[in-house]
């Protein structure tokens, strides 16, 4: 079924009786060519592109809970490609370009909205770093602008310009940055994959892997054994748990990141903004809530919930930047498990087990990567070679000293 304005009107006039299930609930088959473990954004995108772009079939996605229930369903919805390093920028720019055509591609309105992102600058050193980054972005085909203090003030005159502990001195802007309706991304990919014959199997947790002579044979699940020629793992915060089934330890720690939304408000902030002198970033959803976040709690956790100090820290950053939001109310906090890697950058790679592939280490930045991650993972699984924008995302890069450390924090995941 194809969605369109005409269809919406036609259905409205006939009592919405014609809408079909967005996806089936298939029973797992005995064997597939491809099994993707993880029905989040990356896993669903991988299945979608495997079927659509790489013309593969006999594909299943195994999800232990409900589709889109991981970080794709609990992030702060930002898309951008304002990365610095050669290992990252081409990939994220590829991703942004995929976002730009995504809705027409999968026929679902995920509300991709490029209202711009600004990273505020508070010191000369930050301006220097922003200049380096902005130039790197442009050289990789992305867009970037350096805004003066006055230009920022024109945009958001009610920010704290006159009584700030760390004055705003400008901003690095990516006009093509923006937000996307996060759940709709999962649903759009799921629907597109389902339409192309992919079996999306919910409530199906992988409990083991069958590996014979160094080759993957299939997976044990709560719904029985399922054979597979190739298995791809895209489970974010659960990466270490799942890859342990293949005897692997990873350069990843799982951490909790909290996120926040305010009550609905009339328009206040058009684009996305990050505070350069505190742990705070914010955008406003189409529904009106301020969607914001800050730092990870900082300790290993699988609890999917955080603690008060970070809630306070984020609120402090918010109030320091936006003194008018004192009476705006925080509506909800939540937490997700971040697959924090040792250099803050991800992995899309083969493993020592033939036919077993790994996608993870996205830290708290996986949402914006969803289309390219799916595309590149599908590319790797279908062709057994990395996509040209994802060649740096190797599991052996630490052995070789080829870290992709955007923040320069070294091998301490909670600092990235």
């Amino acid at each position, binding site marked *: 079924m194809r969605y369109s304005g005409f269809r919406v009107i036609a259905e409205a006039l006939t009592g919405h009786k014609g809408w079909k299930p967005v996806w089936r609930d298939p029973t797992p088959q005995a064997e597939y060519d491809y099994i993707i473990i993880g029905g989040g954004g990356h896993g669903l995108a991988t299945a979608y592109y495997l079927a659509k772009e790489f013309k593969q079939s006999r594909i299943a996605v195994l999800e232990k809970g409900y589709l889109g229930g991981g970080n794709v369903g609990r992030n702060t919805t930002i898309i951008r490609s304002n990365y610095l390093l050669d290992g990252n920028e081409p990939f994220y720019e590829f991703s942004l370009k995929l976002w730009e055509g995504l809705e027409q591609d999968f026929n679902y309105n995920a509300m991709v909205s490029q209202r711009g992102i600004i990273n505020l600058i508070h010191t000369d050193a930050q301006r220097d770093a922003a200049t380096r980054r902005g130039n790197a972005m442009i050289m990789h085909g992305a867009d970037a602008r350096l805004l003066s203090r006055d230009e920022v003030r024109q945009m958001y005159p009610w920010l704290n310009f006159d009584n700030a502990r760390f004055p705003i001195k400008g901003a690095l802007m990516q006009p093509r940055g923006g937000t996307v309706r996060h759940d709709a991304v999962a649903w759009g990919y799921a629907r597109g994959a389902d339409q192309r014959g992919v079996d999306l199997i919910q409530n199906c947790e992988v409990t083991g892997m069958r590996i014979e002579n160094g080759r993957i044979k299939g997976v044990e699940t709560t719904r029985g054994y399922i054979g597979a020629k190739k298995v791809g793992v895209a489970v974010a915060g659960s990466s270490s748990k799942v890859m342990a089934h293949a005897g692997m*330890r*990873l*350069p990843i*720690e*799982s951490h909790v990141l909290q996120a926040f939304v305010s009550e609905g408000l009339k328009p206040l902030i058009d684009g996305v903004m990050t505070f350069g002198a505190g742990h705070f970033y914010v955008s406003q959803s189409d529904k009106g809530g301020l969607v914001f976040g800050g730092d990870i709690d900082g*300790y*290993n956790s699988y609890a999917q919930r955080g603690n008060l*100090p970070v809630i306070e820290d984020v609120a402090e950053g918010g109030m320091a930047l936006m003194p008018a939001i004192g009476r705006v109310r925080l509506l909800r906090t939540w937490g997700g498990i971040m697959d924090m890697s*040792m250099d803050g950058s991800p992995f899309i790679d083969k493993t020592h087990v033939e036919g077993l592939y790994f996608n993870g280490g996205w830290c708290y930045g996986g949402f914006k990567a969803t289309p390219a991650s799916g595309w590149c993972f599908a590319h790797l699984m279908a062709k057994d070679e990395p996509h040209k924008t994802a060649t740096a995302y190797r599991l052996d890069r*630490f052995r070789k000293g080829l870290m992709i450390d955007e923040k320069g924090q070294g091998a301490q995941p909670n600092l990235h």
Partner: protein
Amino acid sequence: MIIHHPILGPRDAQEFVYLGDASLIDRPDGMTAGVEEFHDYLYQRTNPAGEHQELWYHEQGDRSWLVVTRNTVTHEITKVELARDVARARGRTK
């Protein structure tokens, strides 16, 4: 969270700085170990969902490094030791 410091008693976790897995105590000797061993030491993590021994530093306190045994699913803390004692018990010397 509250960490029961072996010397100072219950302290708010905000007084501490977190480092990570207490396996970071087990640093190989650079004169005998090579890249492979240091790679495993510095980069590879078990990252368990469950009991985890981890290093916390009492920065806003007495500057002790502690080894805290904490469950990463429930956040329950079952044991807190001075990291120096743990390091000695693991045979670390000069």
